């Protein structure tokens, strides 16, 4: 009992210690309000999942009932590294980032109910613009470099409950708040203006904190020997950005859309599984508060196949292939939707199994993706790593 309490405290500490947002993953972030980060762990990534309908005990804020299958206190976190390249205006821009997009925790209480907690990235708002220009200042003009950088993003912290209603039907709910902050800063450096001494960069900017409630409810219906079907509804609530620390800029409130996810897994054989799902959300009214940005009627679809019939390094393992496609939630007002398509794959290893219970599981997922719009095209390669550990 004491060990469980200690473990629970440790898991909670880990939950709050690790950031849910990180560096940038798309050049499109600068053109829209941010790039979505809601894809879950490495297994979901590898299977092209939209975050719902997977068996095998995932901890996902978008599939709140799924955690009921976990019978032991567990924690899972995911790390991602992205390498990307965008062809913008005839030029090529490379970027890379590491981030922790999600951390999840589940704590079953006497097989009656499972308490869940998650800290998940929602929008990544890290991006930068640099432009050299000549100003008519001083004799013969002055070369300056303007930089505008956005640093931060939106995350969500949620706590929830999951309960098995019947042997085949589970329900779950979670609720929480948006968190995070963004700093937006403009800097102009004077590259050729002759002055005595040092001419410091001109800098101005602001900082905003994010807040607002968010909740998801969902259920899972199991069909023994056939598969499972899951659905969830997310109430996006209001995402409030409040200026802090002497920021002159105004705050903004976005009406986040309702999000609908449906997904399922079909058991093709004892070791072969097929997963598919769709994700719907209409960001049309959300973007009304954003200057120059329109919202997309987002329709995402994804799926993949998982084979668990082999061992790797003496451990039972899984191979996965998947594909996902859909719009990004925002687009520049004058442009077409930004469509992201991803081919994915991955490997899962049960690191520690004791008496049939998987106590440690590690997954690796890789994605080759592109984002296309009338503005430009962006390609990326993303490597995800997840680790889930359970405590007996």
């Amino acid at each position, binding site marked *: 009992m004491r060990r469980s309490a200690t473990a629970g405290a440790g898991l909670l500490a880990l939950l709050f210690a690790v950031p849910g947002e990180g560096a940038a993953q798309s050049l499109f972030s600068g053109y829209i309000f941010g790039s979505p980060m809601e894809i879950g762990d490495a297994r979901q990534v590898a299977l092209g999942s939209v975050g719902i309908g997977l068996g095998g005990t995932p901890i996902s804020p978008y599939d709140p009932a799924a955690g009921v299958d976990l019978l032991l206190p567990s924690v899972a976190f995911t790390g991602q590294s992205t390498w990307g390249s965008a062809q913008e205006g005839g030029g090529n821009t490379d970027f890379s980032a590491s981030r922790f997009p999600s951390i999840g925790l589940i704590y079953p209480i006497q097989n009656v109910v499972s308490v869940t907690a998650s800290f998940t990235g929602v929008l990544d708002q890290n991006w930068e613009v640099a432009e050299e220009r000549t100003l008519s200042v001083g004799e013969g003009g002055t070369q300056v470099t303007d930089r505008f950088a956005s640093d931060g993003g939106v995350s969500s912290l949620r706590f929830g409950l999951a309960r098995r209603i019947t042997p085949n039907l589970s329900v779950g709910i979670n609720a929480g708040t948006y968190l995070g902050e963004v700093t937006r800063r403009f800097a*102009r450096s004077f590259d050729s203006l002759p002055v005595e001494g040092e001419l410091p960069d001109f800098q101005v900017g602001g900082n905003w904190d994010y807040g607002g409630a968010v909740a998801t409810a969902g259920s899972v219906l199991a069909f023994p020997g056939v598969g499972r079907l899951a659905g969830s509804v997310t109430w996006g609530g209001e995402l409030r950005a409040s200026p802090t620390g002497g920021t002159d800029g105004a705050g903004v409130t976005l009406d986040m859309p309702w999000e609908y996810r449906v997904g399922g897994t079909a058991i093709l054989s004892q070791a072969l599984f097929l997963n598919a799902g769709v994700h719907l959300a209409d960001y049309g009214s959300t973007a009304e508060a954003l*200057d120059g940005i329109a919202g997309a009627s987002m329709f995402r679809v994804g799926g993949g196949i998982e084979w668990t019939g082999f061992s790797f390094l003496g451990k039972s393992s899984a191979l996965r292939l998947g594909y996902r496609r859909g719009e990004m939630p925002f687009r520049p007002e004058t442009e077409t939707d930004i469509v992201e398509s991803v081919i994915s794959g991955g490997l899962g290893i049960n690191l520690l199994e004791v008496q049939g219970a998987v106590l440690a599981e590690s997954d690796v997922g890789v994605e080759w993706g592109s984002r296309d719009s009338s503005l430009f095209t962006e390609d990326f390669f993303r490597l995800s790593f997840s680790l889930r550990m359970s405590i007996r």
Partner: protein
Amino acid sequence: MKRTPVVALIAATVFGVVACEETSPTSLDGDLIPVGPATVEVILPWSEFGSTIETFGGFGSPDDLIAQVVAEDYRGTLDSRALVQFTTFPRAATVQDSTGETRADSSLTYLDGYVVARIDTVRSRTDGAVEMALNTFEQQWHAPSTSWDLRVDTVLDEQAWEEPGAEPSTRLATGTWNPEVSDSVIFPLDSATLAIFNDTIGSRPSARVDMVTPGAFTEVLSLDLRINVRPSINQDTIIVVSALPERRTFIYSPFPEPEEDGIRVGGAPAWRTVLTLDMPTVLNGPDTLCALVTCPFTLTPRRLNYAAIIITSEETVPGAFQPTDTLLADARPVLVAERLPKSPLGPSFLGLAGRALAPDAFGPNAGTEFPIVVTDFISSLVDPDIDVDSVPSELSLLSLLEPFSVSYATFGGAGSPGEPKLRLILTAIDTVEIR
């Protein structure tokens, strides 16, 4: 087996931290920059940012200087004389006797001697060899305060020379200094003359070094009295002992009174010039500003990118006081204006090394501009969140070392063609919004 999860956790953490270098996506599309900043350079004339210019003198004294100026009608103007009082003669010396043993001898016979003056060959201005003279005079003088007209000039005591220029005096010797041959001039003294400086009964007379050759200017680095002595121990030997200067200074004429509203830095005693600013917080011009931003334009620290007060050098008049070497200038805020000229000053705007002013800028290259960067100083004056009475609005221009030289730097004052001006680089920007 039990270690596997721990190893995996460590591996995952390492993966997350070092997997890839962070490189934020950087767009080159300037249209993404959601603000349209306008940068403009504005030059304000003195009348638009300044109110008064005052020059204060009396900082330090010529006796603080290492070198004494000796000049005669230099550039048709400057007469300057070095004054020195030597210590009493040494009463004993260490001498080798006939056996080669070193012994103290307190029975010395003073024979004759000489005064040697070492000249700064770089800073002196002569046209070939010059003749200099060594004089003696009886009047007592106060080194820190004496001047051409006054031998003592303190708060409690003011006494004039009998005649200006430490006169009357008696010429003791003359000597020739040829800058192409040596860096010293020697004034020989016979035994009778030498005895004058060894008078221990009355008040010891002082020596005065004059320039005899008209138009010459020298700076004397040292003055020593060397005495040839015959010891009692070994009377076949002549040794040399020295009487060192007990105090020394120089006096000069004319005294260059500063121009009203002019800017002067340096000299000995040194001058400082205080610029009192009356900084506007709203600009309605010039046209170059209003063409780019909406006027009236409110100055704020955020909008102020750079500020420099530009002072313009003028030819120093009389020319005899033109710098002959680089002057180091300093600029500091006046912390308590009510206590001028003795107000404490704030930290330098020009750093520990000050600003080097080339001597030609005050002669053939008059009109050279010297910017003094005062961005923070000006920012505090236009900051709406700061009570303007709580921050200094006076700026003191001074020599980094006071005094540094008898010469001084002059700059255009209020109303002159080279009057101070304020260079501002301003950037106006819309508020940065979240979108």
